[in-house]
């Protein structure tokens, strides 16, 4: 089972209560991991409103996670 690094920003950081953590993944895809974390930590945003980045690039939620991946779940942005 892959061990990954997750970094949280903005509303997810506040709802998780920390900025990053190491996790051993028991699901296959980034989207499945978000759903698991959302239920565990009561994230308010549904997966449909989240974008995913792995190793500092945007990827689809169907991306399979691999050992040492750095994963970021991106809430709706509001720059500018």
């Amino acid at each position: 089972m892959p061990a990954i690094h997750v970094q949280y920003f903005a509303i997810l950081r506040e709802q998780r209560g920390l900025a990053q953590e190491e996790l051993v993944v028991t699901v296959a895809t980034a989207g499945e991991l978000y759903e698991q974390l959302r239920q565990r930590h009561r994230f308010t945003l549904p997966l449909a409103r989240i974008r995913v980045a792995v190793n500092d690039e945007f990827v689809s939620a169907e991306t399979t996670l691999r050992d040492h991946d750095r994963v970021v779940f991106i809430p709706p942005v509001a720059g500018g």
Partner: protein
Amino acid sequence: MTFRLSPSPIDPAALALNLRDDAAGAFVSFEGWVRNRNEGQAVQSLEYEAYAPLAEKEGARILTEAREKFRVTGLACVHRVGHLQLGEVAVWVGVTAEHRGEAFEAARYVIDEAKARLPIWKKEHYAGGATAWINCATRGDHAGSAANPPA
């Protein structure tokens, strides 16, 4: 042609100076300012948080696209991060071109794409002490309020 994040105040005059070019006849700049109201609420200050490595990559891509789409001689964009007070510059875009039409269109393209695509988030602080992450409101959630953040 540069994109960067800035933790310190943005200086538009200094940034414009970097774009000086005797071949350019037109310079268009855009500044986003922190304003005192948003959707009817009195804003006191705000915070920008960025996922820096990806924001910098995506910002550079937006500038490259603008250069491919429009005939410009130079362009740059700086986005502020951290805690900002009313009136501060949150984002700056500058474009030079031989002619004004291309400069206007490129500047508009850069700010539109930056707002839509950069992984940057804004938290507004309101007069009463409440806060909200903009665009992150969900059903049953009071305007995205994080007045009672979980532990």
